[in-house]
Structure formats: structure tokens, C-alpha cells
């Protein structure tokens, strides 16, 4: 994860709206992104994140709203005049040009002296470690190499803002993990401000300093990966990022630093207040890895302790997922890290088990 930007306000969108005929693709999105920050727009397909990115690039004109980049309103500036460059999902490398010419393409358009184009292009190729491939054509390179060419090309003009459209989407899983860190390293070396679009939460969490969760054209929550994972603002965000167990209930106790709720599986205590009204409907969200599981009744656990039956076991190597059937019939997902080889291996199908969690493990979400 990259360091969080210390200041915001370098790239600002003010109530940005994009309508296609009747459909609203982007609905009053207001964001403020700091200089040097890596900011991710995360959402499923059709949530408007790509349209937002295309407006930042200049390929789409906003229906209303402003885009300020370094204090300048660029909303109506054509893409070829914007100090913004994009790395396309498909890379969009020019197939008729070699790698060197691809990277030099933008620099040549600026009318820079030949020597400067040469120097800058060589620099960029060295940055992405592709100097030996300068004379190759794009189709002669592997997917990972093509991705680095695309990155070098989009960085060559020293843009004020770099846009990444599903930067790792075209790579296979193994390569993706390795590339994530490489990409962040290069971006941090250059020190450019980045807005990336992705549907892959892992990608967003590893690379971005802050994430905006989008759904139906709106931004639901903006925060660091940790904030979003640990303190989701609503059910959609909680469900979208990672796995979550949601229990519907009613608020029975509400104090500044703790609250209690009654749910179908029993009373649940949570270590934070909600400043709501009593008996209001709420949801309790608990991450599967925050739930403990054991066949024997645990000692010293006074609350948030429930019983259930093991229905499914998914062994995934580094951790195991259990699907439990709670006393009220609801399904509860629990994951346990496999820290030692003997751990928990005595739990099997149809076993009756206890499961519990700390009062700080869960969050209360208003419906």
C-alpha cells in the first residue's frame, strides 16, 4: 500500500455529472485528490467508474460539473490539450510502430528537439527495464512487457495526472501480484498523481492510498483501504469489499463507546456507539476472519458467543473457510488462518461448534 496523500485538492471534481440520453452514468461525483496520491475508483461493471475516468481523460464531456487540475478547469479541454495521460486497459500500443517509437509518440507531438525526445524516451525505457526491446514491435512482447511499454508511454510526457484503466486486468493472476508492486514502485519514483479504475478490490487495496467505492454512478465511500475494510459506511460497501456476515437486528443499548442489538442469532455487543434511536433497525457486519471457532466451549468469553453446525469446509491452503449453520438457521462464514499444520484439523462436517467474536470485531451499519 502506498502512503496516504497528505494534502488534497490537486485534482478536484465538483458535482460531476454524465448523462447518456436518459441514463445517468455518473451522478454528482465530488472528489478531492492530493498531489502524488494513488487514488482508486472501485466498483463493479456499469458503476460509472470508467465514464468518470474517460471524463478525466477528456474522451467524454461532462453533462455538468467541473474538473479542476492544479487549479485549472479542464472539463471542456480536448484530450490532446490536457496534461493528462492514460494507460489503456488494452494498452492500445500502436502496432505499426516499434517500442521506442511508441514511447516517443507523445514527445514527438510536443515538437521537442530530437535529442531531447531521444533522451527522454531512453530514460523511460530504462525505467521500465525494456531498453533491449526498443526495436521490437508490440506483438513480439509478452503481456507484462506490453503493459510496461504502455506505462512508459503514458509517463513519457510527464503528465500532471496519470490515469490507469484496469491496469492489471489483462494479466494472469500470478503476474498480476508481482506487477502490482512494480507498478507502484515506478509510479512513486516518478511521483505522479494517479487515478486508477478497477473492479478488483485486491488491486485497489494494494496499490491505492485511497479508494472511492462506486455504485450506480455515485460514490458511496472514500477512504484508505483500511478505513473502507474496517469501517464500511453501509451494507453495500461492506459486502463489496471482502466477505462479510450481516445480521439484521434492532438497537437495544446505545452509549458513546458501546451498543447492543438483538438479532436472530442472539444478542450482539459492539464496541462503538451509533448515536441512533433505540429499536431502530440496524445490521451487524462481521468479517469471517474475525470470528473464532472451536469445538470446546471457550473460557472467559462472556458475550457474542454462539453455537452452530459445520456445513461446509473449504480448505484453501493458507486458510480454511467454514460455513456454519447457526441456531436460527442463518449461514455464518468463518475463515481461520492455517498457522500450524495441526490447527483446527479436528473440526469436520456436521460437528457442533462454538463461534464468537470480540466486541471490536463487528461494526453496526444503519439500514
Amino acid at each position: 500500500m502506498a502512503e496516504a496523500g497528505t494534502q488534497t485538492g490537486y485534482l478536484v471534481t465538483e458535482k460531476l455529472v454524465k448523462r447518456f440520453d436518459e441514463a445517468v452514468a455518473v451522478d454528482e461525483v465530488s472528489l478531492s485528490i492530493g498531489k502524488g496520491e494513488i487514488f482508486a475508483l472501485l466498483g463493479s461493471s456499469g458503476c460509472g467508474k470508467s465514464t468518470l475516468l474517460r471524463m478525466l481523460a477528456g474522451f467524454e464531456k461532462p453533462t455538468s460539473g467541473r474538473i479542476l487540475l492544479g487549479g485549472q478547469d479542464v472539463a471542456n479541454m480536448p484530450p490532446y490539450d490536457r496534461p493528462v495521460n492514460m494507460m489503456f486497459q488494452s494498452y492500445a500500443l500502436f502496432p505499426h510502430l516499434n517500442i521506442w517509437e511508441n514511447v516517443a509518440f507523445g514527445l514527438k507531438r510536443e515538437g521537442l528537439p530530437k535529442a531531447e525526445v531521444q533522451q527522454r524516451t531512453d530514460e523511460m525505457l530504462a525505467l521500465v527495464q525494456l531498453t533491449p526491446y526498443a526495436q521490437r514491435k508490440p506483438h513480439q512482447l509478452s503481456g507484462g512487457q506490453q503493459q510496461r511499454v504502455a506505462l512508459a508511454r503514458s509517463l513519457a510526457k510527464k503528465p500532471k495526472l496519470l490515469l490507469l484503466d484496469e491496469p492489471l486486468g489483462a494479466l494472469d493472476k500470478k503476474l498480476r501480484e508481482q506487477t502490482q508492486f512494480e507498478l507502484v514502485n515506478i509510479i512513486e519514483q516518478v511521483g505522479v498523481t494517479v487515478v486508477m479504475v478497477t473492479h478488483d478490490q485486491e488491486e485497489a487495496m494494494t496499490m491505492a492510498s485511497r479508494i472511492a467505492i462506486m455504485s450506480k454512478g455515485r460514490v458511496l465511500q472514500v477512504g484508505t483501504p483500511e478505513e473502507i475494510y474496517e469501517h464500511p459506511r453501509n451494507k453495500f460497501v461492506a459486502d463489496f469489499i471482502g466477505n462479510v456476515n450481516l445480521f439484521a437486528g434492532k438497537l437495544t443499548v446505545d452509549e458513546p463507546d458501546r451498543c447492543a442489538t438483538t438479532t436472530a442469532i442472539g444478542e450482539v455487543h459492539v464496541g462503538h456507539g451509533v448515536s441512533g434511536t433505540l429499536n431502530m433497525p440496524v445490521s451487524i457486519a462481521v468479517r469471517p476472519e474475525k470470528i473464532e471457532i472451536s469445538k470446546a466451549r471457550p473460557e472467559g468469553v462472556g458475550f457474542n458467543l454462539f453455537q452452530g453446525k459445520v456445513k461446509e469446509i473449504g480448505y484453501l491452503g493458507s486458510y480454511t473457510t467454514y460455513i456454519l449453520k447457526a441456531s436460527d438457521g442463518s449461514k455464518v462464514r468463518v475463515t481461520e488462518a492455517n498457522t500450524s499444520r495441526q490447527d483446527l484439523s479436528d473440526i469436520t462436517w456436521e460437528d457442533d461448534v462454538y463461534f464468537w467474536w470480540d466486541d471490536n470485531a463487528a461494526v453496526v451499519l444503519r439500514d
Partner: protein
Amino acid sequence: MASNIAMPGKRFVIGVPYVWLFVFFLLPFLILLYISFVDMGESINPFKPIWDPVTGILSLKYENYWTIFRDAEGGELFKTIYIEAYLRSIWYALLTAMLCLLFGYPFAYFIARSAPSVRPALLMMVMLPFWTSFLLRVYAWKGILADQGVLNQILMGLGIIGEPIQMLYTNVSMLVGMTYVYLPFMILPLYANLVKMDFRLLEAAYDLGTSPFKAFWLVTVPLSKAGIIAGFMLVFIPAVGEFVIPSLLGGPENIMIGRVVWDEMFTSNNWPRASALAVVMILLIIVPLAIYYHFTAEEK
């Protein structure tokens, strides 16, 4: 090879086009080549056999070729009506191909960029003229371009010109006719090429600071090179030997090689010379083509 044993039909399938090409292209060409090396015939026979039936002596007549390049009376080399006709034909075929490219490219580009649902209809409109007789379409141009034709009437009606301008039976009317007839042969390969182009490449070019006009020249045109060449060849090659359109729409003073071959064949009844002219024309087209393919193959 194992695959041939497993699929005995494979050779047959591949063989069909070869047989076709042999029977309908190579064989006629060989016959043409044969006739070009024999003497003119007498009375009913259009040409004499290559060997004398009485003495059995084989005699190749190179004169048919020599006269193409130098007059029989011994004039200057390459200063013959034949060479002039060749050069004129190649020149007008080049002009036709250029005009087709000029008009065809926007057509093809527009169709390729239009919504996939309307593309078949637009392509249909390109091919629609083929449903009318070729001759009728060329005659229609006569009606349009004649002194008392549609175009002159309109121009005079609008007061742009006082009296009819001669458009028919000029090089211009011939080029109009040729460009009109060959245009689909340019549009179709260009379309096939442009429709496959990834238009995100244009966005990438804009993103890197290229105006739409420049992006067209730097990205679209180089990427459609194969389509441009294919269309150019499809127009240029038949246009060189075009006979009907120059005869119907062209001027009487500028004779194309197609007309020259026709005259030699049917007016002078000189089959061997007509054949020699045809062979030279084929070589004139094939040699540059072969050189071109040689270089593009090396590039790959």
C-alpha cells in the same frame, strides 16, 4: 505425412483452386504466349503454326515483340504508338486508382465507423450498382455528360455557363466513368481493413497530444496500408487493360492499350501482334507486383 493419410480429401480440396488457376489462367496465357511467337496467318487461319508443316523447321517470330518497341521502318527505340498507349493506359489507371482512393476512403471509413446494425445496409448500397448492367451504367454517364446532357442543362439553367461545355469524349469523362465503375473495388477492401481497426488506438493518439487530423495520418492511414494497397491493385490492374469505358466515354485521339489490342485483333487481324501486346502488358503489371510482394515478404 500422417495428416494426409488421415484426411485423403485434403489434397483434393487444396487442389481445386490450383486446377482452376491452371485451366483458366495459366493455360490461356501459354496459348497467348505461343501465338505471340508465330507468324500471321493467311485467309481463314489467324496464325501459322510454330513449325513449318512441310519442312518441319521451328521458327520463333520475335518481330511481334520488336515492333512494339521500335517501328518496322527503324524509328527511335520506345517511340511507337504501342509504347505510348501503354504509358497512357498506366497513367490513366493510376489516376483512376488515386481518384477511387480519394473518394473511397471516406466511404469505407464512414461505413466502418457506423453502428454495426446499419453496416450491412451501407455495404449493400455500395454494391447495389452491380445489379444493373455495366453497359447501362456507362451509357447513363453519356446521358449525363453529353453536350445536351443533364449536367450541361443544369449548369446552363443555373446560369453558370452560357453554352454547353464538352465533357463527353474527353479524358475527364473517361476518368469519371472509370472511377465510378471501379469505386466499389476500392471501398470493399478498405472497409474490410478499417472495420478491424481498434479505434481505441485513436483515443491513445489523442491522449498523447495528437489532434484528430494528425492522428488520422499517423495512426489510421498507416494501419490501413494493407487495405489501401489491396484496393489500389484491384482498381489499377483491370483499369490498365480497360477497353469498354475508354471506347464509350473517352476521346478519339487518346487510344488506350485495350483498344490497340482490340484493333490489332479484329481490324488488322494480326493475332500474333495482339498476343505479344497482351503478354507485354501482363509483364508490365506482374513485374512491379512481384517486386512489391518480394519486399513486403522480406519486411515480415
